[in-house]
């Protein structure tokens, strides 16, 4: 019985992750990782790895749909991708040397300010 409840939870989490990631072009991981950790009891580092394995195909599908609707800018995307690959390497290297919790709060505040600016 517990098992079938678990299956429904998994399907639902997957659906919501895909929906958010497709609608906003981001945020799939932010939704999925805590779901895996707190609802499915997956270890933290495994949750991150598993989330990427799930969001990758979902992002490919969403990218195709965005592309078909002509909102994609290839040259802009390529430049951002180069930067973010390099940044990603730096980010994972400094991960253990910085207080991520303080940064998390700082960027949380930045997001809130940006959100308010976007509707004004």
């Amino acid at each position, binding site marked *: 019985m517990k098992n079938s409840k678990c299956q429904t939870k998994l399907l639902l989490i997957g659906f919501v992750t895909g929906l958010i990631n497709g609608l906003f072009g981001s945020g799939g991981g932010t939704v999925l990782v805590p779901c895996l*950790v707190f609802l499915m009891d997956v270890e933290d580092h495994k949750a991150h790895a598993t989330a990427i394995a799930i969001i990758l195909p979902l992002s490919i599908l969403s990218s195709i749909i965005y592309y078909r609707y002509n909102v994609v800018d290839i040259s802009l995307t390529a430049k951002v991708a*180069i930067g973010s690959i390099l940044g990603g390497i730096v980010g994972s*290297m400094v991960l253990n040397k910085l207080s991520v919790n303080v940064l998390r709060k700082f960027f949380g505040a930045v997001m809130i300010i940006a959100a308010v600016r976007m509707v004004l």
Partner: protein
Amino acid sequence: MLVVLIGFFAGIIGGMGIGGGTILIPSLIFFLGTKQHTAQSVNLISFIPTAFVAILIHLRHKSVEKRLVLKLILLGVIGAALGSFIAVSLNAQLLKKVFAGFLFIMGLYEIFSKKNIKKKRG
């Protein structure tokens, strides 16, 4: 050059496990005047190469819970298609407002989440 730099900083934040995309999208909009839909597509597509490399590494370390992946992808694909179709059918102004609401909630989440409290045993 500014574009690469924005990507670089978003990549650093993402690499530390703080939502890089949720920072990247408003940065592109504010600093470069990128349109909402395009900014979202930039994040979706630029995630793909990085994720490919990350997955290969994680598979080697056996960190991917394979038993969960298939089930999560099953309805995830339907959600992704639905979400994307909704996004491309909304006009830029409305999508921007909905995104702002989402960004606001994500900001609150980053501030108030207590990720380090629940440490799982190995």
